[in-house]
Structures are given as structure tokens and as C-alpha cells.
């Protein structure tokens, strides 16, 4: 990776991590596992578009692994990692087909994938199919938060592109 890209990648990783840790300090709005704003996903999405999917993947790993260490929520790692990787896969694929001005759509699919994957893992770990009853609530949350984070990434890309060109 060229030096410039590498440096920017590291910078984005640090930002994603900082956003993640700060967001983790905010007490959950609703006592349902998995409902959060997920702002660091905006960074991931931005990275996929601005740097490339593989650089974004590195950022995802840094954010998830170091984030779990810093917040002390190591038990949540399986849920966090599986959700983030599934979301990355979906987003990295969809950006090839969905134009940048509809990035929020990609973000929603990413959010829905993230939540669904987490529930899947939770159901496997607890051996309880009843956990799937949380899916509708999580999807509603995913659509809302996905739109928000997607718009963040989208607007950032638009402004940054016009500044840098």
C-alpha cells in the first residue's frame, strides 16, 4: 500500500476506534441487545468508498479487536466480529452496484446484516430459537441507524471529494 493510503487508513482506523469507544460510554437507549447507533460503521463505509474494501476490512479488524479490549467487552467479541464482518461483506459487494448518492441504502443493508448476524450467533450460542423474536425490533433499529450512518458517510464523501478536487 502506498504510504499515503496506509497513513490515511491508519487515521481512519483510529477514528473508527475512538467513535466506537465513545459510543460505548453512552448508556443503551433500550435494554435490547444490539441496538446502538453504530457510528463507526460510517467510517467503515467511508473507507470502502474512499480507500477500498480491503483497507476498510483492516479498519474493521482494528476497531472490533481493539474496541473489545478497550471497552472490556471481550465476551461480546464473537457477536461484534461476526456482525461486522458480515456487514463489511454486504457493503463491499453492494457499493459496486448501488451509486454513491444512494450510499445510505448500502448502509441500511449493512446494518440489517450486522444485526441479523448477531442474532444468528446469539441463537447458536444460547441454543434458543426464541431469540429470533428480537429480529423485527432490530430491523427497525437497523433501518433507522443505517440511514443515519449511511448519510454521514455519503455526505462526508461528497464534501471531501469536492474539497480534494
Amino acid at each position, binding site marked *: 500500500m502506498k504510504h499515503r493510503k496506509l497513513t490515511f487508513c491508519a487515521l481512519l482506523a483510529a477514528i473508527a476506534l475512538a467513535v466506537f469507544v465513545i459510543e460505548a460510554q453512552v448508556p443503551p437507549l433500550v435494554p435490547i441487545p444490539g441496538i446502538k447507533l453504530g457510528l463507526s460503521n460510517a467510517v467503515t463505509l467511508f473507507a470502502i468508498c474512499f480507500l477500498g474494501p480491503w483497507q476498510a476490512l483492516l479498519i474493521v479488524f482494528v476497531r472490533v479487536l481493539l474496541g473489545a479490549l478497550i471497552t472490556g467487552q471481550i*465476551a461480546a467479541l464473537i457477536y461484534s466480529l461476526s456482525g461486522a464482518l458480515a456487514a463489511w461483506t454486504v457493503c463491499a459487494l453492494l457499493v459496486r452496484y448501488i451509486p454513491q448518492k444512494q450510499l445510505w441504502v448500502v448502509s441500511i443493508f449493512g446494518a440489517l446484516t450486522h444485526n441479523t448476524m448477531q442474532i444468528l450467533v446469539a441463537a447458536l450460542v444460547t441454543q434458543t430459537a426464541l431469540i429470533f423474536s428480537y429480529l423485527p425490533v432490530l430491523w427497525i433499529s437497523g433501518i433507522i441507524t443505517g440511514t443515519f450512518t449511511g448519510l454521514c458517510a455519503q455526505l462526508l464523501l461528497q464534501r471531501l471529494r469536492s474539497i480534494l478536487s
Partner: protein
Amino acid sequence: MSTKRWILVFFVILLFCTALIFLLQTGSESQIAAVYSDGQIVRTVDLSRPDAYDFPVVTQEGGENIIRVENSAIFVVSASCADKLCIHQGPLSPTGAPIVCLPNRLVIRWQSGNAGVDAISGG
């Protein structure tokens, strides 16, 4: 696909999910709560009895949830997990949604079917 079309798609999904939330709420006839740790049932509690007591559920890694039975309700009073969501989920509600502590892999739910008396119950 146009932006308007996408908005419609997600709006429909939103409506669908809202409907699902209400449809999935099964009033449970059962008065027996089942406590699962790591997918295995560790305790059944007959909530029609007036007993009041606490009991702990521990995981292999030393994670612990303390569960209280009181006034025909069952809920988590103390947990070793980081987010404590299980405590804020309150008592097991008649609508059927389980109480979960994902980090400690704990699930409290209404017992389904006629599982019989092959588990420990009461105090």
C-alpha cells in the same frame, strides 16, 4: 432503482416488522419459567407459588447472574456482564419475550409445552 423506490421498500419493511412485533407476542399460558445457561436448562421456577428467593447462575468463565423470584415475577438483580442489559429488561413479561444476558449466555423464558417435572423447581 430510484431513491423513491428504495424509500418505499424500507418503509414497507418497517411496517412489516412493526406488525411482526405484535404478531409474535404470544400470551403464554405457562406459569413456569425456565432458566437456561449455555443452552442447557438449569432451573425451572413455578411462578404461581408465593415464594421469594434469589439464586445465582454461573458460567464456566466465572460470569454470574443473580436471579430473584418475588411476587410471582422473575428477574435479574445482579450480573457480571459489562452491559447489564439483562437487569434492565425487568421481569419476565407475559408477552413471551425472553430475558437474555448474551455475554453470560443466560436465557430466562416461559417453559414451553409439557416438559414435566424433570427439573429442579421451587426454593
